[in-house]
Each structure stands twice: as structure tokens, then as C-alpha cells.
């Protein structure tokens, strides 16, 4: 990602915006406590609907979370892009894709009828997509939710005019460095081998599988994972392991889809180029 060169003479003006999401990423920011107060000495927060009644359309840096799921939200995020010198996406919904995109497996009319019944005509919905699919973004922070350490790092980079490249190594690297027990060894599907790290493998540290919340890393070798882990594709050398665990391609595909359904996940296509 090309680093923005803008340097701020006075205190930069910050705005927070949310689209379709749980708002957990902006709430996580509040957990910074004293560090948040330090940051607030360096910037002026001028717009944050969830926390403030003050409002200004004059801002330099916009933090945006959530998925784009309505036509009107495309317009709104374009206006924010127009105003902001720097646009930062907060969390996977905005940065690369999340469970909101699961609905894209169905026709929108079908989803509306299922959830809203005879009231469906009052609602407007389009296939869900991350903000990065709609406008150019200067900084991306992945995660569901974002890691606070990474948020602070990105804020420092922005304020000092440096670019930020999100981590691009598998969660497995961080898991091994932390000496966590391999979740695959427990017989559960774990997406650590293909998922972008940067989370310090927090989930496997607590014994849960990696659900892939930061999305596939750039060089994810999904094909190799299928050959190592699935009954359908397992290489002879790992057949015994696979027989023990019994993972199917469908097991892996269903789990992968949760955070990788924008654009719609096509496992065979992804795996075709890998080995």
C-alpha cells in the first residue's frame, strides 16, 4: 500500500463512522483507557455519533467500520472518502470481508422475505461487501474485532506520515512462537495455516480454533491445505492423519466462507493455482 504523505500541521481532526456491523471495533478502542487519553492529546475527535453529540463534516482522518449493504451506504462512504485525506478501515467487515457477506449466497429477495416477511418492501439491501470493495482505502486494520495493539501502531504510523502494511504471515507462525497446542491435533478444523496473522494467535491461545477472522493472507496456499487435511484430496503420505480426523472439503469450505465470502468463495478456483 502506498503510504499517504500528508503531515498534519495542527492537531488532525478525526471522525468515526459505522456501517452494517456490531460496532465492536469502535467499542474496543474505548478499552485503550490511558493510551486513548494519550492519543486524544494528539488529535481532535470531531465526529463520533456513538459517543458524542458534537458533529463536524470537516475532518482529516476517517475511521470506518462495517459492511456496505445498502445503495445509500455506497453514497455515504464515497462522501466520506471525498472529505477525508486519510481513510482507515476498522475491522474485517470493512477491510476484507466478514460473516455479513454470508448472505450473498442467497438472492436478496429471498433473504428479505425470510427475515422481514410481509414488511420486506420497507427494506433495501444489496449483496454485502467490505468498504475496500467500494472506495480506495489508505490503511486497513483486519480482525473481528481489531487488535488494540495494531490499532495503536496504525495511529502512530498515520500521525508520523508513515505507511502501514498489514501482517502477511499465517496465524500458525504466531501460534508456534507462542507454544500453543495445535488445534488440528485436537481434531478440529483450524484455519490458522491460511489465515493472515497479526492477532498473536489469541484464539488458539485460549484453545479455540482459528476461525479465519482476518481473512486469507495474500499467499495463502489453500490447495496445499486441502491436500493435507481433507479426505477428498489428501496425499498418500498424510492419509493416516486424515483418516484419524476425517475432515471433509465441505467442513473447510463452510468455515472458510465465514470471513472469506467477498467476492463469493470459490474453493476450487482458489485451490487450482496452489499446491
Amino acid at each position, binding site marked *: 500500500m502506498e503510504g499517504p504523505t500528508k503531515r498534519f500541521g495542527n492537531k488532525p481532526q478525526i471522525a468515526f463512522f459505522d*456501517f*452494517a*456491523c*456490531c*460496532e*465492536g*471495533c*469502535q*467499542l*474496543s478502542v*474505548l*478499552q485503550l*483507557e*490511558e493510551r*486513548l*487519553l494519550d492519543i*486524544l492529546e494528539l488529535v481532535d*475527535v470531531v465526529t*463520533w*455519533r*456513538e*459517543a*458524542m*453529540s*458534537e*458533529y463536524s463534516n470537516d475532518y482529516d482522518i476517517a475511521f470506518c467500520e462495517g459492511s456496505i*449493504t*445498502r445503495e445509500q*451506504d455506497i453514497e455515504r462512504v464515497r462522501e466520506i472518502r471525498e472529505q477525508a485525506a486519510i481513510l482507515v478501515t476498522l475491522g474485517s467487515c470493512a477491510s476484507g470481508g*466478514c*460473516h*455479513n457477506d*454470508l*448472505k450473498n*449466497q*442467497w438472492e436478496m429477495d*429471498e*433473504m428479505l*422475505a*425470510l*427475515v*422481514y*416477511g410481509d*414488511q420486506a418492501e*420497507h*427494506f433495501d*439491501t444489496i449483496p454485502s461487501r467490505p468498504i475496500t470493495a467500494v472506495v480506495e482505502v489508505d490503511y486497513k486494520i483486519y480482525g*473481528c*474485532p481489531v487488535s488494540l495493539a495494531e490499532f495503536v501502531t496504525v495511529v502512530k504510523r498515520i500521525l508520523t506520515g508513515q505507511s502501514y502494511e498489514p501482517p502477511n504471515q499465517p496465524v500458525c507462525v504466531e501460534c508456534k512462537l507462542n507454544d500453543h497446542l495445535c488445534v488440528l491435533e485436537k481434531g478440529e478444523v483450524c484455519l490458522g495455516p491460511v489465515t493472515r496473522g497479526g492477532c498473536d494467535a*489469541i*484464539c488458539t*491461545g*485460549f*484453545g*479455540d480454533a482459528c*476461525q479465519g477472522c482476518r481473512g486469507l493472507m495474500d499467499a495463502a496456499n489453500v490447495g496445499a491445505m486441502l491436500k493435507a487435511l481433507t479426505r477428498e484430496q489428501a496425499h498418500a503420505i498424510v492419509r493416516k492423519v486424515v483418516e484419524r480426523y476425517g475432515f471433509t472439503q465441505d*467442513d473447510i469450505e*463452510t*468455515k472458510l466462507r*465465514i470471513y472469506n465470502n467477498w467476492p463469493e468463495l470459490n474453493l476450487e478456483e482458489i485451490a487450482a493455482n496452489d499446491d
Partner: protein
Amino acid sequence: MTTDARIHVHHVTRVEGHGDIIAEIADGVLKQARFAIVEAPRFFEGFLRGQLYSDVTHVASRICGICACSHKCAALKATEVALDVTISPQTDLLRRLCFHGEVLSSHLLHIYFLAAPDFLGLPSVMPLIAGAPDLVKRAMRLKNIGYDLAALVAGRHTHPIAMAVGGFTFVHDPKDMLAMRERLVDIREDLTASVELFATVELPDFERPTEYVSLKHPDRYAFYDGDVFSSDGHRLPVRRYREAVTEHVVPHSTAKHARWNRPEYMVGALARFNNNYEQLHPAAQAVAERLGMDPPVHNPFAITVAQLIECVHCVEDAIELIDEVVGRGIDPAQQQVEVRPRAGQGVGAVEAPRGILFHEYEYDEDGRCLSANHVIPTAQNLANLEADMREFVPHIAGESTDRITHLLEMLVRAYDPCISCSAHMVRLPHG
């Protein structure tokens, strides 16, 4: 006397999610007063279909960043009923402990960051950072002890990691529990200061008795478990929740409203306070007395005060729960029971910070989700909030339009609406 006023607050600030206030007075008569949900719908009930039971509970917490543990636990409980899983008493204790963390963090976020600026005549807490830094730091300490307590049990508050169908995916360390106990003891001082701050607050003078709905448990102030209970005297097991929560279409709203015995009911901190006052910790009852809260309280603005009283309860009960957990010892063998997929259907209910929350799931024999239904506290409160608005507006019609607008915003904020959650409240009953 205001004889004509048109009020439209676009995207009310200092609430979770997007909602509009619309009120109209013409010739001194109230024409309409409503709270419209304008949040983008997210379709959880639709896209959870096909997911494996363990992934259903993972995604379910993502309905809301504030009440993530409540959604997770409601989903876990429903799924455990469906798969016929019985958790250990140890897991039960730990989940109850986790709830206190969530209630603390959510209530204190609302009390200090969303509601308090109204009582202090400020647009937000931002001016207080320079003007009253000690108060802001206290607010952050209080809120964060809630997050940290939930994280102690579940690995993280938003979103919980280690809570799984059948138990926990790691073994808790009693040393961490005891360190948290010390912090909880120390935080009493901050809570006392909060109580004294609220003792100086004058709530708008307004009362409207309504039906109060909450969980009720025979042995304790209900957050994690209990029956569905109405102050009008009805009690139902959770699996029969559809008899209690009847959703109906109202012509002025795109959101369905909920009713039970009356045209509307209230859920949340004040409903729990009114229904279960006797089970509050004595320290919380003492605070209620200090703040002039004598149940039943019919002023919706007192929801925020009831939240503060619950915070005192949660801290005291968390200390006692930690003593119980550490005292009996944490048995690794009890952390997780075996789970086998099977076809089944189940309902789970908890008291989320904003009120009673229902999740219902149906699974096939492989443990894949066939259908999902969520009934959200904020959705259940909407009819009651609008009934309050209709009665409150004539009550304050003598005020300026600006003042009426501000008081209506305060009323909406008092309910602490969680709109991200409620945006998918309208749905087809499938049962």
C-alpha cells in the same frame, strides 16, 4: 405552551446504532411520537442456516459488540438444549461470572459515556477530559474492569473466545481469579463515587406504570438463567417464550412491536430491578435506598439509576462467585463435556444488559443449522418506549421545541437502545 412542533432527530447520538426520533404536535394535540429504526439490516437468521453448531455460536456473538457475551451465551444455551448437552456446575458458575463482567462494562459505558453528559449539560464526555480528568479516568477504570472480568472467563469480551458448546476451551487459573478479586474489592470506591454523583442528579419528572418482563430465578437475581416472568403475574418456562413474546405489526413502524399481557412491556435493568429487587445483593439494596429507588419504580429515566444499582450487585456477586469457584477448585475434567451432533431444536434465554434475550435454533443430524430466531431486548422495548413518548410529549408540551427534542433524546437514551442488535428483529415466525 407549544401548540405546533415538528421534531425529527436524524440518527440520535450517543446510542448504539442508527435511529430517528419523530414527533409532531399540531394545534396543541400530539399527532405522532415514534422512534424509527433506520439501521442497515444484517440477516443473521438467514445466513446462519447451513453453519455448523460451533460456528453458529461463534457468529452469534457478532450480532453485537456490546452484549457479545449475552448473544454467545443465549446461542450456547439454545444449542446445548438442541444437542442435549448438560454442562458442568463449574461451567455454569464461570458463565455467570462472565455475565457480571458484561453487565458492568455495558452499563458503565451507558451510565458515563452515553447518559451522563445529559445530566451534566454536556454534548459528550470529551469536554470532561480536560475539565474533569479524574471523572473520565474513573469511568474508564470502571468500564474496563467489566471487560477484563469477562476476558478472564472468556479470553476476550468483544468477542468471547473460550466459551464453547459444552464448556470452555481452556482451564482457568485460580491465581488470575484472585487477582481479579482484589481489583473488584478496590473498584468499590469508584462505584461509591459514582453513586454519590448520581445522588445529585435530578431525573425528569415522569411516571408511566407498565408491564415489566424479565427472567426470574428461585435462588438468585437472574442474569444467566431463570423463567420468563411478567410483573402482571405470569411465569413461563423459557421453551414456551413464544407465548409471552407476541410480535405484531403496527401501522406507523416498519419494526414489529412486542406484547404480552398489555399492548407493550419493558425489559432491561428497571424491569429486573422491579421484578427481582428482593434478590439484589444487600449492598445494592442499600444503594437503591440511597438513591431513592423504591420498587416498583415507574419512571423510565430511572433505567440508568437501576443500571448503577445492578453494577454494585455485579461487583459484590462476582467477588462471591470467585470465592466459590476458587474454593471448590477448578477441575480441568469439568471444563468441557463431550458434544455429539444430533437433530434437535432448542431455545436459550439470558438477561442481556438491555433485557431478556431469546435465541432459538434447529439443527440437522450433522449439527448444521436449519433455522434461527433471535428476539432482541431493544426490539421488545420499542412499543413501550413509544408509549412513553406519547404520554411524555403532552406532559412537556409547554417547553420550547429545543427542550422537547432534548428531553425525547434523553428518554431514548435512557432505554440504552442497542440498534445493531434490533435491526433484524422483524422476522417471520416459523413455529
